[in-house]
């Protein structure tokens, strides 16, 4: 029964195949189809590339801009940094030796702001003169203006600097 049915399928297919259409000049039509397909492929590729560029460019620009800090936004508390003049603190007064050997009271008003203190001690006329040195050469009393190498560092206690001893 199965064999008979399969033979029927075979004979029917054979008869049907004889009715196939007779065509001519299939090569030129196929070549035209190849050209159209190639042209369509190129067109679709170009359109895809253009679309990718158009989509990716804004995304890339947005990604690049996000690396920068965000723009400043004024806060209700006011500006964060207000430039102000330097306020000297009592912890670092500038000791300026006075001729009278004034005390360096930390409570005394500090010097004007912004003026660095002179750590070096300036000789004053009231300071004791240097060693007269050699009596044989009284004309060379020593250099009273040259302070010692280690400058006196002003201390918070306000002790005035001691003038350097003139070298003999």
């Amino acid at each position, binding site marked *: 029964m199965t064999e008979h049915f399969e033979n*029927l*399928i075979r004979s029917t297919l054979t008869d*049907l195949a004889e009715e196939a259409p007779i065509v001519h000049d299939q090569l030129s039509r196929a070549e035209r189809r190849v050209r159209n397909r190639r042209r369509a492929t190129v067109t679709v590729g170009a359109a895809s590339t253009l679309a990718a560029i158009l989509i990716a460019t804004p995304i890339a620009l947005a990604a690049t801009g996000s690396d920068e800090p965000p723009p400043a936004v004024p806060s209700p508390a006011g500006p964060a940094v207000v430039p102000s003049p330097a306020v000297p603190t009592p912890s670092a007064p500038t000791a300026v030796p006075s001729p009278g050997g004034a005390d360096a009271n930390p409570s005394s008003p500090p010097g004007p702001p912004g003026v660095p203190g002179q750590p070096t001690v300036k000789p004053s006329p009231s300071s004791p003169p240097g060693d007269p040195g050699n009596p044989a050469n009284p004309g060379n009393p020593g250099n009273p203006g040259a302070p010692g190498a280690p400058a006196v560092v002003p201390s918070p206690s306000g002790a005035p600097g001691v003038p350097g001893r003139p070298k003999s």
Partner: protein
Amino acid sequence: MDEDERARLAEFVGSRTPALMRVAYLLTGDRNAAEDLFQSALARTIPKWGTIRHADPEGYLRVVMYREQISWWRRLRRWREIPLKPADEPVGGDPSGGSDVRLAMRAALRHLPPTQRAVVVLRYYEDLPEARVAELLGCSVGTVRSRTHRAVQRLRDLLPDVDRLEVRR
């Protein structure tokens, strides 16, 4: 492609077109669809002609036709109901001897889906073994067997009176 190559291609196409068109017609069941299928397969073969001309160009073209016919994209693009012609309508008994059975079988073959129809053509028209059919269609032997079984079963379902028609003949 130079002139020599194109002349060989033209000779191949001219000599093998009738046989290939018969297969295309059996696969599609429609004259226009058969021509379209053959041209589509030929268009896919032409760019490869330089590499397949020394091997088996006809086999390559046949494989392209088989797979093109059962491809999902082609079915999506070309899907349409094949209208039944008046000759395809179920027929009654015909005392002329066998033509009624064959006409009924022809009408039943048109109702097979492309995959089952391709298997039937390869198995019963090309007389290819199951392994070769599986190789050509790019599927397993078990798939070929199941498709063949379903196709024959569907043909039997579409032709319930085939035994009666055979007896009457």
